Every structure is written in structure tokens, then in C-alpha cells.
């Protein structure tokens, strides 16, 4: 095996090693020490991040493993994001009851991350489908991990049913794609589609079938129904992972498929109008329904649906700047939303509730937690100087540059809708008081893993919002691989 081939799957190999290490080591630890599995996972993931950054960087884009894997900056960049998100999630998982002391939960997290890594770099339909399943199956289990909690079981089961159905539809699309082009390699499909005699209607049908599977992963309307129920019932850190890394993996597949295999050159049909309509629907529905939510996890679920819509704007722009803005948006979004779900996890661990009204007086109960919440929610709302603001600016700029001014306007109107419900939550946190009780006697202690993760994420959100040039140029380098 030559060095490039090995470097291409270095993070995946290391993830597998770490997973097996956890599986072997965990049973030897005493019951009270099992929480250390979380530290082991976190440390291991950080080490993988560092080693991959040092030894696994791609050079010129190359296809390895018989063309099933594409080794380029786009895939690499996403891989690093997923590993980072998994590291943060492992910290959030540690103090969750019935989840944090089980080695299996970390193994499932790592396996899912491995699947995402392969999703980001897969360039063959067979590999892609396997990668999507490797990502999803551990996540189904993680969502339903807390077996004696009915909500968690319901969440896992709903996710499984939706996932199985959409992946079957997508597989049908893949089989048609193979039937029409005679190859499963994305780059060869691109060539075959460009010179094929497939009618526009058929081609659009195939694209629609494939889009069902990806739309489910990134929770685009109308494939979003699972998201609120799954997020609400799943253990909170898992919900955070689902709404960030899993969604970003979906977008990684989406851009590769739509920009390489279904590229709008020659005879390939124009799919942007349809996707623009979906983006509009997704943003509007997500934001409107989010306004009426009383449960914070459901609110974040609808907000994450809306954010998928914003990211789609960048995809629809179909330009270099568009993909750059998609990647940049995903960086900012992953940091912000992980923080938001982390805060919810901390709060519900102590208060035992996910109701927004129970957040009253949080600023007095735990000023630092309230501060982190301020950062995360203002970034989600798209306020400067946080990451969410810059990300939105780039996405809208990409739309305007591609003559899609109307879409940018829709996006801006939607952001204003978003500001309303994010600020409503912050109003409860900062202005409302707990009824008839002294807030100081109900503190919300932060355990060390939560503290570390929230500090890192909050600083990250701030950093991306202020010093965005290096991130933007890195996103640009990743985007360049598609053109």
C-alpha cells in the first residue's frame, strides 16, 4: 500500500483503532471509573485530529482504492470537522446518566464518525451508500440508547423507520443511476451523464430519488418530520451530534454528488430551481414552526431545519463562492449548535426539564452558563460579532453573486424571523425570575467536561466571527476541489 493510499484513510483507521481500544479496555475498568472512557475517547479524538493534520493532509486530488475514495481537501476538511464535533460530543456525553458510563456509547459515536468521514470522501455509489449506513445505524442506536426511557426509545425507532425508508428510496435512485450510466464511480457518472441520451424528466426523477436520502440526513423540508421528535427524545448530546456532524456529512455528500455527478454542464438538467424552492420552504417552515415551540430541544430542532435551508442557499448558488460559503457556514453552525445542545444538556441534567419557561432566572442561577447561551443563541440568530453572522453574510453574498437576489431576500427575512424566537429564549434566561424562590439557592454546577467543551465552543464561535479570514480561505481551498 503506497503512502498516499494509506494517508487517505488515516483518520478512519485511527478511529477504528480507538474504537476497538475502548471496546477492549472498558470492561477492565471498575464501575466507578467507567466515566474515564469519555476522557479516553476525547483524548484519542484530539490525538487523531493532530496526527491527521500532520500526516494525513492531501496534496493534489487523487482517487484511491479503485476510485471508491477521493482524497482531496474537501473531504479532509469535513473529516476534521466531524472528528472535532465527535470530540466535543464525547465530553458532553460523559455526565449523562446511563450513557456516559457505557463504553458502547463511545464506540457507537466513533463508528458513526468513521461513517461520516467516509461519506465526505466517498466517490463511488457503493462506498457512499455503505458510508451513509455506517453513519446512520450507530446513530439510530444512540438515539434510543436509554432503553427504559420511552421518549428515547420512540426517538430511536422513529429515526430508524424514517432512515430506512429514505435510504431505500435513495438506493433506488442509485440503482437507476447505475442503470443509465453503467458505472458507480461519481466522476465517471459525470462523464456518462454529460454524453448520455437520458431524457431530462428521467434524470430529474433520478436526482429527486437520490435527494430523498440526502434530504433526510440534512433535514430538508419535506423530509424533516423525524427531526423534532428524534431530537426531543434522544439523549441531548446525541441530538447535538445529529444536528451538527450528521447534517454536515449530508451536505458533504450533497455538494459532491450535485457538483460532480449532476454538474450542470452539457445535457445534465438544471436542478437549481427545485433546490431553491426546497431551500425557501425549509427556511420558512423551520422558522415559523420554531416560534411556537415550548420545548427547547424542539425549538433547536426546528431552528436546525431552518439552518439547513440557509446552507442550501449556498448550494443553489452553484459557484465557487457558494461552496465556500457552505463549508464556512457549516463550521460556524457546528460550533454554535454543539454549544447550544451542550447547554441544554447541562441544564436538563440539573433541572430535569427541557421546557423553555423553566430557564427563567438562569442568568442568576449560573451566570457563565447564561453567558454561553447568549453567545450560542446570538450566533444562531446571526448577530455580529459571532460566527453565525459572517456565515450568513457569505451565503447571502453567494446567492446575490449568482443572480439569485430573491433567494437572498428570502434568507434575510427568515433570519429576522429567527432573531425573534432566539431572543425570546434569551429574554426568559435574562429577564425572567424563578417564581417565589431565590435563584442563588438553585445553582447549576458545571462539571469539568462540560466546562472545557463550552469554553472551547464559545471561544470558537467568537473566533470564527472575528478572525474569519483563515477559515474562509480554508473553506475556499476545499471548495476549489469541486471545480
Amino acid at each position: 500500500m503506497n503512502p498516499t493510499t494509506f494517508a487517505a484513510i488515516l483518520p478512519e483507521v485511527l478511529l477504528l483503532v480507538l474504537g476497538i481500544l475502548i471496546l477492549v479496555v472498558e470492561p477492565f475498568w471498575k464501575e466507578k471509573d467507567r466515566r474515564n472512557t469519555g476522557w479516553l475517547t476525547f483524548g484519542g479524538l484530539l490525538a487523531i485530529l493532530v496526527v491527521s493534520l500532520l500526516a494525513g493532509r492531501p496534496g493534489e486530488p487523487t482517487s484511491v482504492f479503485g476510485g471508491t475514495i477521493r482524497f482531496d481537501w474537501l473531504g479532509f476538511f469535513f473529516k476534521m470537522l466531524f472528528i472535532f464535533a465527535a470530540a466535543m460530543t464525547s465530553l458532553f456525553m460523559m455526565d449523562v446518566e446511563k450513557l456516559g458510563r457505557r463504553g458502547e456509547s463511545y464506540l457507537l459515536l466513533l463508528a458513526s464518525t468513521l461513517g461520516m468521514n467516509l461519506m465526505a470522501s466517498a466517490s463511488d455509489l457503493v462506498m457512499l451508500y455503505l458510508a451513509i449506513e455506517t453513519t446512520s445505524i450507530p446513530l439510530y442506536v444512540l438515539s434510543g440508547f436509554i432503553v427504559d426511557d420511552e421518549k428515547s426509545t420512540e426517538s430511536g425507532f422513529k429515526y430508524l423507520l424514517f432512515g430506512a425508508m429514505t435510504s431505500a428510496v435513495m438506493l433506488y435512485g442509485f440503482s437507476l443511476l447505475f442503470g443509465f450510466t453503467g458505472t458507480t464511480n461519481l466522476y465517471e457518472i459525470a462523464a456518462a451523464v454529460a454524453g448520455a441520451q437520458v431524457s431530462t424528466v428521467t434524470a430529474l426523477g433520478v436526482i429527486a430519488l437520490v435527494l430523498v436520502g440526502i434530504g433526510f440526513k440534512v433535514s430538508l423540508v419535506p423530509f424533516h418530520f423525524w427531526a423534532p421528535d428524534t431530537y426531543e427524545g434522544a439523549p441531548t448530546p446525541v441530538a447535538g451530534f445529529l444536528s451538527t456532524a450528521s447534517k454536515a456529512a449530508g451536505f458533504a455528500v450533497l455538494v459532491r454528488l450535485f457538483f460532480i455527478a449532476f454538474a450542470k454542464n452539457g445535457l445534465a438538467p438544471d436542478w437549481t430551481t427545485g433546490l431553491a424552492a426546497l431551500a425557501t420552504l425549509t427556511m420558512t417552515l423551520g422558522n415559523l414552526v420554531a416560534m411556537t415551540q415550548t420545548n427547547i430541544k424542539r425549538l433547536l430542532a426546528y431552528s436546525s431545519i431552518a439552518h439547513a435551508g440557509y446552507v442550501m442557499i449556498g448550494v443553489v448558488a452553484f459557484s465557487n463562492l457558494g461552496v465556500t460559503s457552505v463549508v464556512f457556514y457549516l463550521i460556524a453552525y457546528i460550533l454554535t449548535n454543539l454549544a447550544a445542545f451542550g447547554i441544554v444538556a447541562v441544564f436538563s441534567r440539573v433541572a430535569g426539564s427541557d421546557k423553555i419557561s423553566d430557564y427563567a432566572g438562569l442568568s442568576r442561577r449560573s451566570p457563565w452558563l447564561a453567558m454561553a447561551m447568549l453567545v450560542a443563541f446570538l450566533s444562531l440568530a446571526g448577530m455580529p460579532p459571532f460566527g453565525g453572522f459572517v456565515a450568513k453574510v457569505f451565503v447571502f453574498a453567494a446567492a446575490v453573486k449568482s443572480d439569485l437576489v430573491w433567494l437572498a431576500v428570502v434568507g434575510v427575512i427568515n433570519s429576522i424571523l429567527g432573531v425573534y424566537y432566539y431572543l425570546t429564549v434569551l429574554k426568559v434566561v435574562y429577564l425572567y425570575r424563578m417564581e417565589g424562590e431565590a435563584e442563588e439557592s438553585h445553582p447549576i454546577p458545571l462539571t469539568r467536561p462540560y466546562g472545557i467543551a463550552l469554553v472551547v465552543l464559545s471561544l470558537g464561535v467568537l473566533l470564527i466571527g472575528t478572525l474569519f479570514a483563515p477559515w474562509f480561505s480554508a473553506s475556499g481551498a476545499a471548495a476549489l476541489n469541486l471545480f
Partner: protein
Amino acid sequence: MTVDLILFLILALVAVATAAGMLFSRNAVYSALFLVLNFASIAVFYLLLGAPFIAMAQITVYAGAIMVLFLFVIMLLGAEQLAPIKVLPWQRPLAIGLAAVLVAETAYLLILRAKPAADIIPPAETVNTLGELQRLGMALFNQYLLPFEVTSILLLVAMVGAIVLTKREKGERE
């Protein structure tokens, strides 16, 4: 060619009938047996397509191993008889409507657009004839090496997941 076509039509009827039988029978054991028959007829499809190896794999893996497991589970659980289910009032009209759409679509494809079927390009090379089992192995362990390995990870993780979801931790209430 015509023999193939006649065989295909008969088998297609069998396949569809057994699939329907699987769905409609109220006894889980009958359903499982119908499914075995369905798998067997699909295996013959593979034979017709010139893929004897896949046909054999279909028989041994699906009709053999997996269905035996299914039957065991059904019988061990004693879940042969389905409880009567409440029928949703809107379900039947909706199903009829969707079925009509499907029939119309099929008719459209078969009658009006029969020609573009020729557009379907067969894969560049046929690797799956029994004599060329070697080439199947070569394809699996060269070009598709990584997906093959990833499958093993997927199976491991699925197994861990299944154990997590079914096994109770010590000290937890039943």
C-alpha cells in the same frame, strides 16, 4: 429469447403473488414461507440474468440461513397469529389512489416509453458468472476492498448496538 421471456413472465407472477401472499397472510409462519418462495423465484431471476453465483448466494444466505432464523424467532416468540388490527378509515382510499398512480405510471413507462429502455447501458463487463468467480473475488478484494472492509465494521457496530438495546445492565429493574 422467447423461452427466457416466458420463464420470466411466469416467475414474475410467482414473485409478485408470493410477495402479496406474504403481506396478506394473517399467520406469521405462512408469511415467512411465502417469503422463502419469493426469494427462491428471485434466485431464478438471477440465473436468467446469467449470474449463477448470486443466485446460489441468494438461496443459501436469504432463503436458507436468514429465513430459518426468522422462523425460529417467530416460533420461539409464539407470535404466529397476528392480533386483529384497527383499520384506519382513510387508509384504504389512499392506498387505492396510490396504487392507481403506480399502475398508471407503469403503463405509461411500458406502453409509451418502451423504447428508452434500450438506453440502459449494461455494466462494462460481466463479472458474476460462475466460471468467473475468480474475477468476482478480484473485484471484491481489489476495487471494492474498502467497502468490503467497511461492511465488517458496520456489522460489528450493528451487533454492539443490538446487544446494547436488548441486554439489561446489572441491577436495572426488569
